[in-house]
């Protein structure tokens, strides 16, 4: 370790084992929250995107309306509506749901999952719609049913085309998750806010957390680039 860094670490009274642990716990919460909402969002987004491409407006209409609502309003408002609103639902305090939704983690998870699901639905829809016509015609000529076409042809090729946009959505979600700290969740940003108010040291508290987020972001960028390379390897020029 360089001497000046060691000297600075010796003198500082902010980055002790306790605060580092607080940041670490915050990071665990952030990763859990983001990962879970992305998984839940993706799970619902695939069927919704298929429904969104159906010709019948009574099926695709409601899905369009859902994505339009959630993409047109700020995530912060969605979070507030769910966080403050759940407690106001009549009778919820007597059911078992109250034990779950009383903690801020679950309303936030619900808000994030609904939000990311809306964006992901549109991304996957865009990929499905841009499937080359010839491929579908060929599949039809082979006598494949709708279900088989979807499973063998449309969805795999759509997944390849969606990866790039989806990686942006993942990073966007990671960045948006910082607002979880507003509803008293101690995620990375929440930890930074606590430490800021304890030491009144804005630069130390927030710049450190900025580096934590940067590490997370660039890890994800790296993983997605690997994944993209893997999925699009058939498009690489021969010999590279």
């Amino acid at each position: 370790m360089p001497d000046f860094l060691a000297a600075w670490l010796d003198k500082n009274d902010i980055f002790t084992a306790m605060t580092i642990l607080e940041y670490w716990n915050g990071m665990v919460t952030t990763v859990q929250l983001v990962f879970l909402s992305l998984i839940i969002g993706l799970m619902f987004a695939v069927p919704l995107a298929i429904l969104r491409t159906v010709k019948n407006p009574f099926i695709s209409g409601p899905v369009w309306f859902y994505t339009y609502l959630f993409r047109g309003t700020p995530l912060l408002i969605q979070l507030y509506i769910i966080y403050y609103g759940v407690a106001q639902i009549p009778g919820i305090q007597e059911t078992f749901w109250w034990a779950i939704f009383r903690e801020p983690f679950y309303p936030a998870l619900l808000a994030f999952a609904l939000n990311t699901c809306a964006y992901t639905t549109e991304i996957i829809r865009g990929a499905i719609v841009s499937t080359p016509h010839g491929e579908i015609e060929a599949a039809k000529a082979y006598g494949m049913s709708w279900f088989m076409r979807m499973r063998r042809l449309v969805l795999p090729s759509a997944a390849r085309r969606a990866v790039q946009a989806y990686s942006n959505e993942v990073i966007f979600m990671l960045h948006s998750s910082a607002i979880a700290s507003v509803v008293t969740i101690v995620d990375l940003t929440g930890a930074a806010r606590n430490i800021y108010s304890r030491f009144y040291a804005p630069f130390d508290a927030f710049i450190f957390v900025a580096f934590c987020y940067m590490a997370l972001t660039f890890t994800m960028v790296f993983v997605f680039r690997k994944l993209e390379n893997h999925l699009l390897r058939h498009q690489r020029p021969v010999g590279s």
Partner: protein
Amino acid sequence: MFDLKGYGPELLSGAVVTIELAFLSLALALALGLIGAAAKLSNSRVAVGIATTYTTLIRGVPDLVMMLLFYYGGQVGVNMISDYIWATYEVDFFFQFDPFIAGTVTIGLIFGAYMTETFRGAFLAVETGQVEAARAYGFSQWHTFRRVMIPQMMRHALPGIGNNWQVLLKTTALVSIIGLTDMVRVAEEAAKAERMPFHFFIPVAFVYLALTAGSELFIKWLDKRANAGVIQEN
């Protein structure tokens, strides 16, 4: 009709704050984006390095963290500078760093980075023949930039600017966290006081929806105008 329990005027002035903030930070973002794109496409390695660091840093850090850093750190920074000026020059220099400035600067900086990428792509989409023709006519570098590059790259940049604007509009909601009384802040206080979250947040959500839908139409119209005379494929 809809009863806002007397919070109506406050919500309205909050909406005005939101819109002011959005437009000011858009102006800042557009300026930063043009400068950033020009720097990224320049021959100077220093300029390219600075612009790349800027866009990479912004992409790695959440908006809220930046905003908190600027808001809490801004005042501390101003105090440090004013202490220093007082100590060396004995000049009393001080200003209150308010959440509006912090919000505008942060949102402008963040979207400046995104605009940089948008403009960079758009500049690259302008045919090199156009630039060569301008040089052949004896246009200076600045003249080529202003008269040939900017008008032609706008057509390619508009969809990207539109997308960034939609995201920017929604990001303005974050300023309520650092204490600026925008629409969201008023709604939050009203919702807490009256214990009616749906009653106050849903109208605010619809105002945002109306703003995004309205700007979508406006951008479509602009896009149509910018593309007048361009033959559309398909």
